[in-house]
């Protein structure tokens, strides 16, 4: 199964992956409209970590684990693994208890505090290559087959 991996040596901390993620999950799928006009603007499901003023940065994201800790911790059943291996979250079902935030060892679940819903990477079901990967200007994000055990 293909997953998104990040290469810290080439990441410049531009946060465009986050912008692309928000846009992709917005209603209009248009960045300007999503950021300025949409109510309940989505939150980014990838997180750019930085330190020392950007000397080091990289984008972290969901690993779609074979044995997801988030799924086992979720008390509502909102998190399920689909047939393709993508770990999906049904935000309708989610009650915002943050058990998944507590359990994911990658810190890959985000809290949408306003909506009181957890959000996580869904691999962009409407696209072949996830939006964050397409948006990265210097290919610091790659979409490739991985071999997690």
């Amino acid at each position, binding site marked *: 199964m293909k*997953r998104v*991996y*990040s290469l*810290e040596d080439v990441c410049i901390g531009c946060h465009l992956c986050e912008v692309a993620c928000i846009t992709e999950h917005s209603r209009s799928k248009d960045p300007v409209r999503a950021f300025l006009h949409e109510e309940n603007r989505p939150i980014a499901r990838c*997180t750019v*970590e*930085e*330190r020392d003023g950007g000397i*080091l*940065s*990289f984008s*972290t994201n969901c*690993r*779609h*684990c*074979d*044995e997801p*800790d*988030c799924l*086992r*911790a979720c*008390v*509502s*059943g909102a998190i*399920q693994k689909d047939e393709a291996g993508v770990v999906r979250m049904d935000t*309708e*079902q989610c*009650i*915002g*208890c*943050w*058990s*998944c*935030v*507590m*359990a*994911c*060892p*990658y*810190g*890959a*679940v*985000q*809290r949408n505090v306003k909506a009181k819903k957890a959000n996580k990477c869904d691999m962009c079901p409407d696209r072949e290559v996830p939006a964050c990967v397409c948006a990265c200007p210097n290919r610091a994000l790659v979409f490739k087959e*991985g*071999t*997690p*055990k």
Partner: protein
Amino acid sequence: MNYVIIGNSVAAVGAIRGIRKVDSEGTITVISRERHVAYGRPLISYLLGGAVTEKRMPYLPADFYEKNRVNLLLGREVVSVDSEASQVKLAGGDVIPYGRLLIATGGDPFVPPIEGMAGKERVFTFTTWDDAARIKGMSADIRKVVVVGGGLIGLKAAEGLHQIDKQVTIVELADRILSAAFDLNAGRIVAKKMKANGIDVINGDTAVRIDGEGEEIIGVTLKSGDFIPCDTVIVAIGVRPAASFLKGSGIEVNRGVVVDDTMRTSVPNVYAAGDVAEARDFFYGKKLPMPIWPDAYIQGDIAGISMAGGEIEYQGGLLMNSIELFKIPTISMGITNPDPGDRYEVLTYLDLGASVYRKIVLEEGRLVGAVLLGKVDRAGIFAGLIRQRVEVAPFKDHLLDPEFGFVHLPKEMRTTLFSPEGKAA
């Protein structure tokens, strides 16, 4: 193979999936005394409070039992296990043979003897869908409630009741609420917020008598002598492993059903998982019941795989809790109240005004526990560091930083933990 599972909650679900990872042929029978399909038990307070409807209670996609070819017997109670004859007996007399048996019966609410309780109509426990539905059904007659017990279940009951505009007083014997997970600071922050919302929290006291004539309740008398008027009482002192039906089965039961690292009990072909089981804890290998949802799932998964002949070993249970109380998110994990002494190092950050608190517990340079209030994002990274027994001394100073992330780890560690290949199973 003929698998029989007693109980139909998260440990059972983990086991069904575990069995099916290894064995797609065997028959699986699940027996539950409840009449519902598996549901999010922690959701019952949301059901009571109205934040969740009955439609959202089921924990699984509708086709789960069919897809996994599970023969589901609802509303049936197992009254005994005959491990010599390899069969279980149901109330009513039916007998079901098993090849491998899983005990996943969870916990029963513990109700201590309280004077005056007999015959009172509105004394409830709060652990099942039906409990929540019953209280909700009566809610028009409820005005003021005393919740005995300030643990997870008591706090959740209080929150649900508060949401439907009931007056609530919590009585907790310990010096703080959620004493198993919280320390004094965390308990105080949350209790303060609850009081601001009109919920009374009484610490260091407990109920000794329920007052009132016949069915009627007029209040509760506390050990201190104080009297709290109320019309309804919820007893939420805790749960005990639901193992009493195993008497005479030869299966070793201590506080819970004692299991090894493959979830096997002392009797061949019988396994146990979840709140009913007493398995090894992560840090010191002590066997104890660990009544939390994620651990019940993990134990169920291991039991299922082992029952089907697969190989897997329990890493030990790590206590962790995530609970949001009156808009303060709280996450706690591992050892949160270490014994004083030089073995442990404790780092804290406290901003009372903003209800932000971080406490990090280290043992010999390794992370063993954390309490996070207010800012809980990416808390799971800590859980990962604990489980991997990572030496955190090199980046210790960053652990209190709300922006703490992989970026603060030495490169080599970051590479093995975070990228590129992802987490091992």
